[in-house]
């Protein structure tokens, strides 16, 4: 009997338990539905950024939205977004109101692929608070940068931001600094690229400035420390946004930006093209892409490209185009310090960095701007295992007070330093003049050039015949004969070749074949440097 009761009681308890479970499951289910809805709602809202009205305004300015930009930059379907639910944490000035909260805040971050290769991306969303940088915004960027560094893949930033989130005060400034720190940590570890696609002002400019490459979009992007209004109030200068910090200013005068593109679509297409030249990190070798151009292709036009008169100019870009794979050359800073040419190309499929003096501009001399331009490029290539090919036709350093007062000594030293420091394969071709200190600087044998060639037209000397004779035979009468003797002795490749300062005098038409062959051999080059904390380039 008692046992029967116990059983009945137990049954009752069980039934109670069962009904409780059912209720619990029911409540759980309804909770789940609402969470799912909330997730969906948040995602939908996030995809719309600052809302349709702001998107339309963005389009009207000829600019794409943050997400449209990502969709063009990355392979279709490859974008994996992170932090879509992150919101800003500011409660002041009415910022806590629902209408002032946007899932994802003012930046879209994540990873994806460009032509199949991994890349981390952040794209600032101008439709949300003008793309201004909140603490949360900065945190999202830092998160993907941290992962990019640990994984070893490049970071691309698409900048379109009005500046700091003023409502957040110092939190926003802290956010900038957090990003700067990561830019510096990542420097030389993974390639970092900035594409300025709208305003970028104040403290914000220093993130692009710390990255390896800064590209701009013509007519719609600006970079400056302070805008025209502040300039007017402080220095009383009248200047437009475009004049102060537009693409033309930074690609031709300041040297802040490395290249400018026509519009968003053109810029993003070009960025995909550019990305293919880069290794993913400093642990990776220079990428090798499929190549249809025969590595032993002879280039007959090079045999006559250097004019007979040594005062006559020619276009070094023509030489570069005809030597590299398929005439493809991605020039960096094509409109700044045009007396030196730098850029990326491929030799037998492998990415190479090209440096060349440009006889067409200022006779190809080295000056402050061209030295700094060259040095920065050489250091990038060295950091990321990209072999360097240097075409030399340099009459020397540019003389004059402007250059001396501007510090040509310490700036010229940068290029010298960069070439000397570089441990990547270095192949040098002297096409014509290699005079004075500039000869030493331009990846000479003495700075551990691996293979140094001279064309038969090469003249390697301390200076041109006229200047040299004026010094050696000062006061003498028969200057012309002396000049002829100097030319006979030094205006040819032999003095350097007999000393082993050039490895060979080559037929210009064979240049491509020789370089391709050398690069194959040099691929396994290894150089050990003595331990140091870091080097001290003369900044």
């Amino acid at each position, binding site marked *: 009997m008692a046992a029967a009761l116990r059983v009945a009681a137990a049954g009752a308890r069980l039934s109670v338990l069962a009904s409780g479970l059912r209720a619990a499951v029911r409540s759980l289910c309804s909770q789940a539905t609402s969470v799912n809805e909330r997730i969906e709602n948040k995602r939908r809202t996030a995809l719309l950024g600052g809302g349709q009205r702001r998107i339309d305004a963005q*389009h009207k300015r*000829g*600019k*794409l939205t943050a997400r*449209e930009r990502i*969709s*063009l930059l990355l*392979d*279709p*379907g*490859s974008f994996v977004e992170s932090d879509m639910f992150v919101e800003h944490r500011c409660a002041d000035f009415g910022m806590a109101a629902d209408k002032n909260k946007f899932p994802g805040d003012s930046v879209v971050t994540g990873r994806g*692929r460009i*032509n*199949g*290769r*991994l890349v981390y991306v952040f794209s600032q969303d101008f439709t949300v608070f003008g793309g201004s940088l909140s603490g949360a915004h900065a945190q999202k960027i830092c998160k993907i940068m941290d992962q990019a560094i640990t994984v*070893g*893949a490049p970071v691309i930033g698409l900048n379109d931001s009005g500046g700091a989130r003023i409502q957040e005060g110092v939190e926003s400034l802290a956010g900038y600094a957090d990003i700067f720190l990561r830019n510096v940590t990542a420097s030389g570890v993974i390639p970092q690229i900035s594409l300025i696609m709208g305003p970028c002002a104040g403290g914000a400019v220093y993130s692009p400035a710390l990255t390896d490459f800064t590209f701009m979009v*013509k*007519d719609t992007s600006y970079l400056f420390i302070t805008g025209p209004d502040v300039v007017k109030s402080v220095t009383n200068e009248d200047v437009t946004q475009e004049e102060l910090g537009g693409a033309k200013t930074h690609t031709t005068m300041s040297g802040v930006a490395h290249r400018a*593109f*026509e*519009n*968003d*679509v*053109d810029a993003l*297409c*070009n960025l*995909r*093209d*550019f990305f*293919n030249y880069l290794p*993913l990190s400093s*642990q*990776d*070798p220079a*990428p*090798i*892409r*499929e*190549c*249809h*151009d*025969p590595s032993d292709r002879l*280039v*007959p*036009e*090079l*045999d*006559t*490209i250097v004019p*007979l008169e040594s005062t006559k100019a020619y276009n070094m870009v023509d030489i570069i185009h005809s030597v590299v*794979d*398929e005439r493809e050359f991605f020039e960096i800073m094509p409109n700044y310090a045009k007396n030196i040419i730098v850029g990326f190309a491929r030799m037998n*499929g492998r990415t190479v960095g090209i440096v060349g003096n440009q006889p067409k501009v200022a006779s190809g001399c080295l000056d402050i701007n061209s030295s700094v331009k060259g040095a920065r490029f050489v250091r990038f290539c060295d950091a990321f295992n990209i072999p360097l090919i240097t075409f030399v036709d340099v009459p020397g350093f540019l003389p004059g007070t402007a250059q001396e007062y501007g510090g040509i000594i310490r700036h010229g030293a940068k290029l010298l330093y960069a070439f000397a420091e570089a441990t990547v394969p270095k192949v040098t071709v002297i096409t014509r003049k290699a005079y004075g200190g500039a000869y030493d600087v331009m990846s000479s044998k003495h700075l551990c050039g691996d293979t140094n060639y001279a064309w038969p037209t090469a003249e390697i000397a301390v200076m041109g015949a006229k200047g040299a004779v004026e010094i050696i035979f000062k006061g003498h009468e028969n200057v012309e004969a002396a000049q002829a003797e100097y030319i006979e002795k030094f205006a040819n490749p032999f003095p350097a070749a007999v000393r082993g300062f050039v490895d060979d005098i080559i037929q210009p038409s064979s240049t491509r074949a020789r370089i391709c062959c050398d690069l194959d051999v040099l691929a396994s080059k290894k150089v050990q440097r003595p331990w140091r904390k870091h080097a001290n380039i003369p900044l």
Partner: protein
Amino acid sequence: RQCLMVSRNLGSVGYDPNEKTFDKILIANRGEIACRVIRTCKKMGIKTVAIHSDVDASSVHVKMADEAVCVGPAPTSKSYLNMDAIMEAIKKTRAQAVHPGYGFLSENKEFARCLAAEDVVFIGPDTHAIQAMGDKIESKLLAKKAEVNTIPGFDGVVKDAEEAVRIAREIGYPVMIKASAGGGGKGMRIAWDDEETRDGFRLSSQEAASSFGDDRLLIEKFIDNPRHIEIQVLGDKHGNALWLNERECSIQRRNQKVVEEAPSIFLDAETRRAMGEQAVALARAVKYSSAGTVEFLVDSKKNFYFLEMNTRLQVRVDSGIQPGSDISIYYDPMISKLITYGSDRTEALKRMADALDNYVIRGVTHNIALLREVIINSRFVKGDISTKFLSDVYPDGFKGHMLTKSEKNQLLAIASSLFVAFQLRAQHFQENSRMPVIKPDIANWELSVKLHDKVHTVVASNNGSMFSVEVDGSKLNVTSTWNLASPLLSVSVDGTQRTVQCLSREAGGNMSIQFLGTVYKVNILTRLAAELNKFMLEKVTEDTSSVLRSPMPGVVVAVSVKPGDAVAEGQEICVIEAMKMQNSMTAGKTGTVKSVHCQAGDTVGEGDLLVELE
């Protein structure tokens, strides 16, 4: 300029290897003409001396010759026409004979006399024939005497522009003004009224003075709509002369031959014989003892008129340039001549079209597009041509091949396939194990292709070397090796063989493709990029009517305005001499001259700013 020639039958003249020849000759010419002479000399075991101007120092003819002598700076009057320097070169090199080629000193009697005085043989017609034929006025008088048909006109030297107008009125418009010493279209102009006569007189005499050092002009009736047909003659020292078949040279641009054809499909046997006989009569009259060409104008009724006699013969596919050669603004800008043969005209023309598609020319502008268009033009194919052919068929200038609908689809399909081939290749990396490449899986490439401002929808899918392409709904199959480095790409579109050239390609989607001889600019974007591209703003372009830029590299001959001058639209601003032609640069709008950036004597490059208007 290319000169090309369609031919059905052409013999070659052999030589007897035992015949006594010279040990060494000097070739007083340049370019492909000199190359040809040097090549023949090499075959005959004769040593050669080339002459050259300083800018030609590394040109092909200099490299080919056994010796070379620089005879002066770039302008022809100071080098290739510099008799003193050339005589000096002959003495220095001990050349026994001089081959003048044609042009330059080949028809200069003074030069022939100098050579005779030094006992150097002049390879070519003797001084009498040169004297007679080298001068248009004399040659016309001689032709009349030999009862050769001549064009009605004024047989004397014209003193000034007003006399030119008076004579022109007497003969009746239209008239042809030409340099007495000239040839090859230089210093030659047609005038339809008094005003044009004055202009023509001024420009022609300037050109004549700079090209031939002789500014004498003559005026004659201009035969409207004529054909230009020439007869080749051979004469020897014993008074024998015979004529060979004719060549039709009617397709001309600025009186320079563009296409030649033999035989002419216009001449009947009777006219051919009559022309041949008159040509021989003329050769006999001047005791011609060499190979030469007698040029006739033939009107639509097969009346023919003697034009001029050239003391030379032409044959062969020639090129005086190789990669790296300079095509200087100082000399004749011919790049190459192309000759094709066939068992019939259709075959010769088909071969020529194929050959033209296979020319790879970079770095200079050329006329392949025009040449290819001429030989497929229905009027040309029918043989309905005259020297006015080009201006009749292309009254507003030649604008390139007009694509038929199916040709356009072919072009779009080829361009799209190329685009996808480049995109696919961009994903082909040599794998490194640290980080795998994960290629996007795109079965159908949806593209938007812009050609001539019209957007076409294209879907392309790739299967090995074959692309299935749908262009605006029509399906095409495109097959090729897709060698993306080769300058020429042989493509099969639905079985039709095409040779295309991808001349340039930008990451932003712009591509220029040479197809059927003409270069087409297309812009290819993925559908997504094209949709987003709609938001991109139009860029403001420079107002070109207020700036005058040099259309080509050349030398400024004269500047007729200064800052502050009022100019009318169409008014001459300056004259640029390029490719040996004087080009009058005119104002693009009525206004005031703001600044002048050039002066007479300046060398200017293509696109250089010359003059700005307010």
